[in-house]
């Protein structure tokens, strides 16, 4: 049985300069209450690993606006002009990674693999500085694993054991990130009694979840 953590207490767990894996795709499936609590607290210098930086005023976009991100490892910043401006001014160091490579690098970090071999990025600026590996006559880029100090993930529902179930396109990076951080903080929309989420519907086993955010008020 997990104990419900208050959102302010969860934010307090995260030291300045931490590497955060944050779920979500343009804000869909992002842990919005946790993000708001981090903005409220104002401690930053974070490296954020996420699909994108959403839009100003939405999800991870709020961390950008609040100036809490020092480095962003993301696949897309096209819908957030603030991220682009801060990249150009040097305030945020942006590392652009192809989306499929990003999720597999995080997965590799989470499942104990030494890297990923992918043809994605060959012959493009993504190849620069990377090792090319030939396997059975085909060329691949060696992409190295990514891990975080914290994974901040959102789910549709949790049970008292921390088992998580996701909804529609709000899965995105969340189930993968739950494997790849030292500390996993899950923000469910609802918390249900054990058994209410059938075993077949559990996408993230509760054993991976360290802190479960209390219910929405």
């Amino acid at each position: 049985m997990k104990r419900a953590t208050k959102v302010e207490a969860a934010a307090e767990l995260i030291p300045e300069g931490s590497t955060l894996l944050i779920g979500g795709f343009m804000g869909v499936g992002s842990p919005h209450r946790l993000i708001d609590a981090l903005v409220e607290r104002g401690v930053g210098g974070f490296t954020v690993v996420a699909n994108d930086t959403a839009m100003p005023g939405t999800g991870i976009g709020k961390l950008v606006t609040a100036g809490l991100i020092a480095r962003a490892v993301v696949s897309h910043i096209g819908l957030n002009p603030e991220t682009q401006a801060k990249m150009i001014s040097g305030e945020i160091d942006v590392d652009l990674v192809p989306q499929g490579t990003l999720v597999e690098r995080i997965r590799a970090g989470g499942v104990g693999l030494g890297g990923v071999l992918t043809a994605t990025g060959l012959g493009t600026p993504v190849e620069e500085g990377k090792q090319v590996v030939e396997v059975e006559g085909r060329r691949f880029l060696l992409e190295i694993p990514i891990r975080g100090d914290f994974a901040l993930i959102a789910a549709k529902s949790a049970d008292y054991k921390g088992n998580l179930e996701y909804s529609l396109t709000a899965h995105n990076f969340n189930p993968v990130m739950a494997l790849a951080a030292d500390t996993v903080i899950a923000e469910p929309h609802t918390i249900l009694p054990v058994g209410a989420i059938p075993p077949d519907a559990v996408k993230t086993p509760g054993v991976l979840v360290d802190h479960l955010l209390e219910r929405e008020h």
Partner: protein
Amino acid sequence: MDAKEIIARRVALEVKDGMLVNLGIGLPSMVANFLPDDVDVFFQAENGVIGLGARPPEGMEDADLTDAGGAFVTAVPGAASIDSAMSFGLIRGGHLDMTVLGGLQVDERGYLANWMVPGKMVPGMGGAMDLVAGAKRVVVAMVHTQKGKPKIVPECTLPLTALRRISLIVTEMAVIQPTEEGLVLREVGPGVTVEQVQEATSANLIVQDVVQEMKLA
């Protein structure tokens, strides 16, 4: 009929019954509007759904169901929601029958550049590199020229999206197939002559005896 509609109607004829198809944002997404009734396909949105449906009625949107551009969508009966690792596994693993993407440049080798203009537009590649590297067929749907400047060029001057010869270029003026030998002009647009296509194209085009006028869905 404007240029974009001609392109979308021509690309629609490339979509065959039973396919899994990924449509890019903007012009490529218009293709879905022109599919013949007897063509039954699944559309994938790489943020996590197979079986993308139409826009929901206003006020009935599900916050957890969007397309890869962040727009609210629905899911068709038989749809599946998937996480990003599965989504890009489908793309890279050869399970995606076709992707339709926009383009900035395509060259005589059939290489595509469609994700950045150095110093001007650096939105990030998102899923584009994985889609071009991994989909079984890559169809580029774009207007033939940009402010009068050819987009089908001898060699891309913009950073490439992938080291992969794309399958087909469809513009309002022409259907062009990249081959081992070079770019073969297959069809011309409604009322367009071969000479007009050549004039609007800086790449060398291989013109065979028969160049048909394109049919539209």
